[in-house]
């Protein structure tokens, strides 16, 4: 067992990326690109911001993390293992027959997972429910929810986005992994989201826009929430799909393709070479 809170964030993010490559490559599973784009965000949230106890996953006053882009599950499973929720070796069972680690985030028999996701647009409404429950009960819990850019096409995201500021849920944080590529093409070409930060601002959120691979910037943001008392916080993180593996970066193909064989070797070598 390791502890994410004691690791250097760049080191934690690198470990997450290597796990993602090994898991998806070994299993021949999709979605490595969107897992790599989220790695630095997850590292900063689990490494510095989230208050949790892996020995007591149901601790009532814990902060919650909801991985709404459930297809990027390998990154979540990796950070949970690195945070001490379960042994890192269990990641080897990813996507295998009988494993609890499914190809989308599943809560059954995976300690640390708050919500099963996989259909987009579910995470933010549930996170909002958790946030308002904590407020009304006077508990200190905060709720962090990571969503994808393509997910912002879902109307339910904006239903929750309307609701949370109205109820002044400043214990709620949404992180948008804005990697600019969705399932069938570039976000700009499918359904353009720009200006995305302005949209959240217009809905009443306190917004910060940052480079989602600048771990210091992300660390600063996630440890400074709420950005404004009485408002939920939104972090629009500009990211790169496939970040960390040069041949994957900004390539739609790696939404689907798994890094097997030589691809895996090359990816791991490259990640090892990064600090």
């Amino acid at each position, binding site marked *: 067992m390791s502890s994410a809170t004691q690791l250097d964030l760049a080191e934690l993010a690198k470990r997450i990326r290597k796990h993602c490559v090994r898991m998806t490559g070994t299993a021949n599973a999709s979605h490595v690109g969107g897992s790599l784009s989220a790695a630095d965000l997850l590292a900063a949230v689990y490494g510095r911001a989230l208050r949790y106890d892996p020995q007591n996953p149901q601790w*009532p006053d814990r902060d919650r993390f909801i991985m709404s882009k459930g297809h990027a599950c390998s990154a979540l499973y990796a950070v949970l293992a690195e945070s001490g929720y379960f042994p890192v070796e269990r990641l080897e069972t990813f996507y295998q027959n009988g494993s609890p680690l499914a190809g989308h985030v599943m*809560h059954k028999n995976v300690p640390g997972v*708050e*919500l*099963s*996701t*996989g*259909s987009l*647009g*579910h995470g*933010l*409404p*549930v*996170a*909002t*429910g*958790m*946030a*308002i*429950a*904590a407020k*009304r*009960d006077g508990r200190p*819990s905060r709720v962090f929810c990571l969503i994808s850019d393509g997910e912002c096409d879902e*109307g*339910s995201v904006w*239903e*929750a986005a*309307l*609701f949370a500021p109205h109820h002044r849920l400043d214990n709620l944080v949404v992180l948008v992994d804005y990697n600019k590529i969705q399932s069938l093409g570039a976000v700009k070409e499918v359904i353009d989201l720009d200006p995305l930060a302005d949209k959240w601002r217009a809905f009443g959120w306190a917004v910060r826009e940052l480079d989602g691979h600048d771990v210091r910037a992300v660390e600063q943001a996630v440890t400074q929430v709420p950005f404004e008392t009485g408002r939920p916080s939104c972090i629009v993180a500009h990211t790169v799909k496939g970040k960390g593996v040069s041949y994957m970066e900004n390539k739609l193909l790696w939404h689907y393709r798994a890094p097997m064989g030589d691809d895996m070797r090359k990816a791991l070598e490259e990640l090892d070479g990064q600090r």
Partner: protein
Amino acid sequence: MRTAFIKELFELAKQDERIVLVVGDLGFGVVTPFMEQLPKQFINAGVAEQNMTGLAAGMALSGKIALTYSIANFPTLRCLEHVRNDVCYHNANVKIVSVGGGFTYGAMGATHHAVEDIAVMRSLPNLVVVAPGDPVEARAATRAVIAYQGPCYLRLGKAGEPVVHQSPIEFELGKAIRMREGKDVTLISTGGILLNAVRAADLLAKEGIQTRLLSMHTVKPLDAEAVLAAARETEAIFTAEEHSVLGGLGSAVAEVLAEADRVKVPFKRVGLPSAFSPHIGTQEYMQERHGLTGEGIAKTVMASLRTMAGKLN
């Protein structure tokens, strides 16, 4: 039923602050006392049923007993996948409440005809499906679903339905209430059509047919014991529901009968065809057009008995 529900819920919520009512911007005049007197236990999610359902799931996963409340198909079909994934898969302690089951809002048009909800909700894992037959059952059902730990669907009618149960009832989820004994046929009813089922039994009695009448307020889990007892002890079984014959009470009963050992009993579903009703009108008018009044049900039973007798000869 609506009044019985909200009154009972109000009383329960005053004693249990875990109870929180999340409405989809509906319930004018109905939820007002709750809203005003228990503001910490009330949320209006606005016209946003997906978020309403997700909110309730999130609150339930944080220790609340959360109810979603809207009318007709809005809290069920509109946000179905949120019910499935967020509520049912997580076994979240959410109670989905729909006012306006069947043709309650008949005059409002097909969008407001809730006639597939039982079928759809019955197919979801972990979900208990309850359709009380009158205000007395509605009150008891409200108590029961709140006491039950896990997801429930409560299908209600409107306000002001007559009380059918004239004496106190014993209400248990998954257990049919035997309202009348008879050796000839069994009539099984769910939801607000119960009064018509009683009328049908009265009419059948005049024709010399003695009816065992079951109020099957819980469609899932179904009281299979009561169905099988009816198959053994009476000569034919009929179901009555203000709902499509596909997937509702009739289907649930048929499933039990089809798979039971050594059971051979004439059976017919009385309900709606799988079609959008070409009519609009009051609930009574709609029932009349679709053969679901007491007279309509009795007529179908009589006609079926004649056909069944013909087949036996």
